[in-house]
């Protein structure tokens, strides 16, 4: 008798289990788009997932039209066109993004600079016609590079580039800012969780259907099919910068797309990649670039002074340097040597 009941239990439970699972299914929606010159994907789970995704996509296009350097109708295009001539009145939002960028430029001693655009043009990273310019050309262009030459007027919301030939490119901030904005927009809907991937800048909200946190891998700069490790992330952004994505080779030397504003040349750093983890996406985007340019020791020094974010560095010897505060969430891939610092 008892045995029959036991058997019945065993047969009955798998059936009831699959029924239970259907009830917990929330609606899911996802959309992939090409914007800001990269691939973007928004995945949302929750009752209003579809509406949230649509609103998120709209927000991306709105920001692109506001902040792109190459779209003639954008506010940044207007500011660049008036370089050396006059002030341009911009929206409060654009003004805010510019002032945050300048703030971080100061904080990182100029390792992050939104005015390196003329250098990007010179080296061919804007057009794809890569070339190594000669030193005098670099010196020429360097005279119109420098965040100190961006004038902003808080009261009137006006911006001006001091010199003719200067140009501002918010490309290294826009994706980070867009991550924050998309998250804010979709959170106005009834949703449970979201995964926003803006060209490798990842922002996550909530937990997956299974109750597990999202697993965000950090790309291995030396072997793209592999990972440095996987981060269990919840309500944060993860941004990685490295020279491995866009670069060109000339006479056996590799030139990467991240410029060192100090030298006017592609950054020569002992780091292969820098990942920054924080709830503030714009901060992640800016700091990942700035810390990459700084190099390992300066980056760790910077973190020690401002230890409120998570940081993962990979250096040219293949060693990982991981900040102590994300030790729990970040599982390092097999075979990688790792140093935790605090």
């Amino acid at each position, binding site marked *: 008798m008892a045995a029959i009941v036991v*058997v019945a239990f065993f*047969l009955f439970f798998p059936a009831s289990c699959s029924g239970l699972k259907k009830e917990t299914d929330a609606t899911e929606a996802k959309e992939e788009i090409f914007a800001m010159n*990269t691939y973007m994907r928004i995945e949302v789970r929750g009752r209003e997932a579809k509406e949230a995704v649509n609103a998120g996509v709209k927000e991306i296009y709105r920001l692109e039209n506001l902040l792109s350097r190459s779209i003639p109708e954008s506010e940044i295009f207007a500011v660049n066109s008036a370089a050396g001539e006059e002030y341009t009145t911009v929206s409060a939002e654009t003004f805010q993004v510019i002032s945050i960028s300048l703030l971080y430029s100061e904080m990182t001693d100029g390792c992050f600079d939104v005015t390196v655009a003329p250098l990007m043009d010179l080296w061919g990273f804007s057009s794809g016609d890569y070339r190594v310019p000669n030193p005098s050309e670099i010196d020429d262009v360097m005279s119109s590079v420098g965040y100190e030459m961006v004038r902003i007027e808080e009261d009137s919301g006006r911006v001006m580039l001091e010199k003719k030939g200067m140009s501002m490119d918010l490309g290294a901030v826009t994706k980070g800012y867009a991550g924050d904005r998309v998250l804010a927009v979709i959170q106005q809907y009834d949703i449970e969780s979201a995964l926003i991937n803006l060209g*490798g800048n*990842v922002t*996550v909200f909530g937990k997956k259907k299974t109750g597990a946190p*999202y697993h965000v891998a950090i790309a291995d700069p030396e072997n793209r*099919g592999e*990972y440095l490790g996987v981060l269990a992330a919840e309500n944060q952004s993860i941004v990685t910068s490295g020279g491995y994505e866009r670069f060109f080779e000339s006479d056996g030397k590799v030139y990467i797309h991240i410029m060192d504003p100090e030298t006017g040349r592609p950054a020569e750093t002992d780091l292969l990649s820098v990942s920054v983890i924080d709830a503030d996406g714009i901060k992640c985007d800016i700091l990942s670039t700035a810390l990459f340019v700084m190099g390992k020791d300066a980056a760790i020094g910077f973190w020690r002074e401002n230890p409120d974010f998570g940081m993962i560095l990979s250096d040219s010897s293949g060693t990982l340097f991981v900040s102590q505060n994300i030790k729990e969430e970040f599982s390092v891939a097999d075979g990688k040597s790792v140093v935790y610092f605090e």
Partner: protein
Amino acid sequence: MSKENGNDGNAPKAVDRDPAGAEARGSDFSPRLSFGVPDFLLIIVLVMAGLIPFVFGTLRATKESDFEKVAILTVAGQEVWRCPVGNGSEPSEFTYSSQEGILIVRADKSGAWVAHSDCPDQICVRTGKISRAGQISVCIPFRAVLRIEATNPISDAWIHPDGIDAVSE
């Protein structure tokens, strides 16, 4: 489980005074607490049973959902090609052509990759082989995305220890 029912008949001597089983079943005999020959035989049988999936595993995979993963190529958001990736899947190739030129993707049992692209930056080709659920290889000029997805909806570590949701790069 039928085995258990069958043995009910073989063991009528079990003292079943209390049908609710509240009285200890083991009360009329001393329980065996040391490893014996039947245990050894049982363990051999169980270990052998673990081999059964190997026998069926290679024969079974016919539907896409029988594989753990699938490679999917989308162009401008539209799916143009998909191919199962995993043990037993056949090598496969797909050529996509547009005014940009041609894009060739290949897949085999270990993963999928962009084998050739007429795009100028070659980021997609440099990305190389992708093999884990959640990985992508993107070609912006073609608006093409090659992605590995788990055919299994549970991307938990339990089922997919290597499954991830996104790559920060």
